[in-house]
């Protein structure tokens, strides 16, 4: 096995070039802007902002990944963000309902919206492009109707905390000055747990068959990831600590990575997108799965809507405008295939981060909104061309 080990590292990297390529691209883009912005990019305050600014895109990208892997698309998510924000504002500000009630109601409302669209796609086989295009118009209109054309706000502190709050420092004062020791500890814990989980998975695999991923790749991957986590949490800890929303995001990413990688539900969604006829003939209830991906997407769009409204501290008729484009772009940059069946949660997250870092970096160095759009468009195209090129070469 040892002599094949070194040979297989190259083979493994070549066959998984897409997964690592995007991470490398993200790091390169970060480094690029770090230099161009004279170090502003990785300043703790900017890094914090980066996460806050992109949280809702990442949250939705996770759901959109499932929809796209299932072979569909959801264009309505931007409008749903606006609509749910408006719904929350009306319930909290106008009707004085408690936040603890409004949040679950809004999430359920989002799930129902997604389910309503998924119903037509799954059971009536109406193309998702059309159904969600209709949904986009409908909920954009309903947002306006709900808000009466005006902005509604502000929200109470408890609601705002979801988006702009930070994990409190339970170890406060142990270290002098502005350093959030508790946040740092969380980061250290996470950096320690991930390789342990990874090793356990490898050991379990090895019991049945040879492990595909070479040890060298495994070590490098976890070393880089661990250091990145430590580095980011350190920077954030020197500012105000981990934002609440970052924790929510991390949980969502963990949950959906687990679902897509390790559950029969996830496997069936990939099968559905990979070859719907074969999936059906293998006894998979493809309709119910499609329905589920849309309901799930609706709920995550609702969460994003709450987060966005909390961040702006007001619900505006323009909230969520064109978000669907950023979300869909993130998923495709992250390596998902338009025809379904291919894509990873972590890829979509990296895709969203690439978009976010570029937005942020270009704004800092003063690139106008006009050229930002042009560059982002070209990056999306380049990422997908890279995909197709790799596939044809294989």
């Amino acid at each position: 096995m040892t002599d094949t080990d070194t040979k297989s590292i190259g083979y493994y990297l070549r066959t998984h070039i897409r997964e690592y390529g995007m991470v490398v691209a993200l790091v390169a883009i970060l480094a690029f802007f770090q230099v161009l912005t004279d170090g502003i990019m990785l300043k703790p305050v900017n890094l914090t902002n980066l996460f806050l600014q992109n949280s809702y895109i990442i949250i939705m990208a996770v759901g959109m990944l499932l929809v796209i892997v299932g072979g569909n698309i959801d264009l309505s998510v931007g409008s749903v963000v606006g609509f749910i924000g408006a719904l929350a504002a009306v319930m909290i500000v106008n009707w004085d309902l408690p936040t603890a009630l409004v949040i679950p109601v809004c999430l359920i409302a989002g799930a129902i919206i997604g389910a309503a669209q998924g119903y037509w796609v799954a059971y009536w086989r109406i193309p998702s492009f059309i159904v969600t295009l209709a949904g986009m118009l409908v909920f954009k209109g309903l947002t306006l109707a709900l808000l009466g054309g005006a902005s509604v706000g502000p929200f109470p502190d408890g609601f705002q905390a979801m988006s702009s709050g930070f994990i409190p420092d339970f170890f406060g004062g142990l270290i002098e000055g502005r350093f959030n020791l508790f946040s740092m500890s969380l980061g250290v814990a996470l950096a320690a747990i991930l390789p342990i989980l990874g090793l356990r998975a490898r050991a379990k695999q090895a019991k049945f068959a040879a492990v595909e991923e070479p040890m060298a790749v495994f070590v490098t991957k976890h070393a880089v990831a661990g250091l990145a986590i430590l580095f980011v949490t350190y920077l954030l800890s020197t500012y105000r600590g981990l934002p609440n929303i970052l924790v929510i995001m991390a949980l969502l990413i963990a949950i959906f990575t687990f679902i897509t990688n390790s559950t029969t539900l996830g496997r069936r969604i990939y099968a559905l997108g990979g070859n719907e006829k074969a999936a059906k003939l293998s006894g998979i209830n493809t309709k119910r799965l499609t329905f589920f991906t849309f309901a799930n997407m609706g709920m995550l769009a609702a969460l994003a809507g709450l987060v966005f409204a909390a961040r702006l501290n007001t619900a505006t008729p323009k909230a969520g405008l064109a978000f669907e484009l950023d979300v869909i772009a993130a998923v495709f940059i992250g390596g998902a295939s338009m025809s379904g069946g291919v894509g990873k949660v972590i890829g979509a997250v990296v895709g969203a981060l690439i978009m976010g870092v570029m937005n942020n970096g270009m704004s800092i160095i003063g690139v106008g909104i006009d050229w930002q759009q042009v560059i982002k468009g070209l990056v999306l195209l380049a990422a997908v061309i890279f995909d197709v090129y790799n596939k044809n070469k294989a």
Partner: protein
Amino acid sequence: MDTILEMKNITKTFPGVKALDDVSLKVERGEIHALCGENGAGKSTLMKVLSGVYPHGTYDGDILYDGGVQEFKDIRDSEDRGIIIIHQELALVPLLSIAENIFLGNEVSENGVVNWPATFARTGELLQKVGLKENPATLVTNIGVGKQQLVEIAKALSKKVKLLILDEPTASLQENDSQKLLDLLLEFKAQGITSILISHKLNEINRVADRITVIRDGKAISTLDARGGTITEDDIVKDMVGRDMAHRYPDRTPNISSEKLMEVRNWSATHPLHPERKVVDNVNIDVAAGEVVGIAGLMGAGRTELAMSIFGQSYGTDISGEVLLRGKPIDVSTVEKAIASGLAYVTEDRKEMGLILEESITTNITLANLPGVSENGVLNEGAERSVAEEYRGKINIRTPNVAQKVMNLSGGNQQKVVLSKWLFAAPEVLILDEPTRGIDVGAKYEIYTIINQLAADGKGVIMISSEMPELLGMCDRIYVMNEGEIKGQLAAKDASQEAIMRMILKA
């Protein structure tokens, strides 16, 4: 007599298969020349060479047509010289009108502007020629298959046809439509148009053909002159099927249970788009444990439709009938339930309907039985791998790694992956639809061995195949199906290709 077409020593190879081996064909001006042969014998390939679908340079040999050697680059090239081919699957655009379809790509126009009055007037003339009484503005989707066939012929006529090639023109037609079509061919002959007719229906060939060339296994076997009326259907059949069958099938000592394992009673299904067409008509079949039962028939006989409608109503509407396992009715209304009841269906189209090509061998093998490798919905990756490794060894899937994507495997190995998937689902009855289609001889033998093993393990195997020798070599009993009905059954010892053909053509 004047020769319009001579194809000389045509050889065409696909990767791993010699589809045409030194075939020569001579067609005389003004005759109706029939091409006969089993499915896969090479008739359609020969016609694709002729019409430029396989362009000059991709085959060996010469095409002499209309006095000179031709080197067609594509279909347009051959059409310009008056060779028009009408394929078995009609190439009409359903949501365009008859007139639009006839002049598609060949519009009556000036500077890109279509002259509609002229288009409709000329369509009217053409429709009259082929005896179709329809408004030229009618959408093609709104007329029956028989009439669509006539539209195709009208389209051919619009292009000044000299040599008309019809590939199984009557396969999907009702009896009286078929007769009309054949009359039309005779009329064309009177007008001096030469036709090549590919058909399975020997009675039709006998009725209209002047000469008959029989192709078998990519070789031209004989050319018979039918004008004297001395050629019988038996003569044709003998040339079509006579081949050496020794040792192409592994030996087996059948151990067939006396009780029926699965029974299908009064099974019917209609076409999903044409509710008036009964594709499966009151079918009764059964299989015992340890038995391999074949279903013979020509393409379009309704065999796949029968299998798929049984397997979770995957085909057709208005499905009626009963499926019994060990004498008890089972619920096969969804694929999930059919699998749970002990059925498995291995599709004839493994790439389109059997495999997820982008996924690994492992993923494909466990797909129909995910609960078998998971706990509370959480997959056990290790268990999956070991299942895949187990079948790689047992079924002999040739791959260095079960993480390999299925699209990188050869046809034979892909088929083994599909079989593994269904074996892992642990069915009692397997329906195998064309299990050896498109795979090489060595892999076929391995598939046959697996089938025999399944029977030896006490499973019931139903095998649909268009290759009659395969059915004769493998099955204990053969049902013959045609036009949606079971026409009869033969015990292995009484069966022969001639007997099956006769039973099919009896209708």
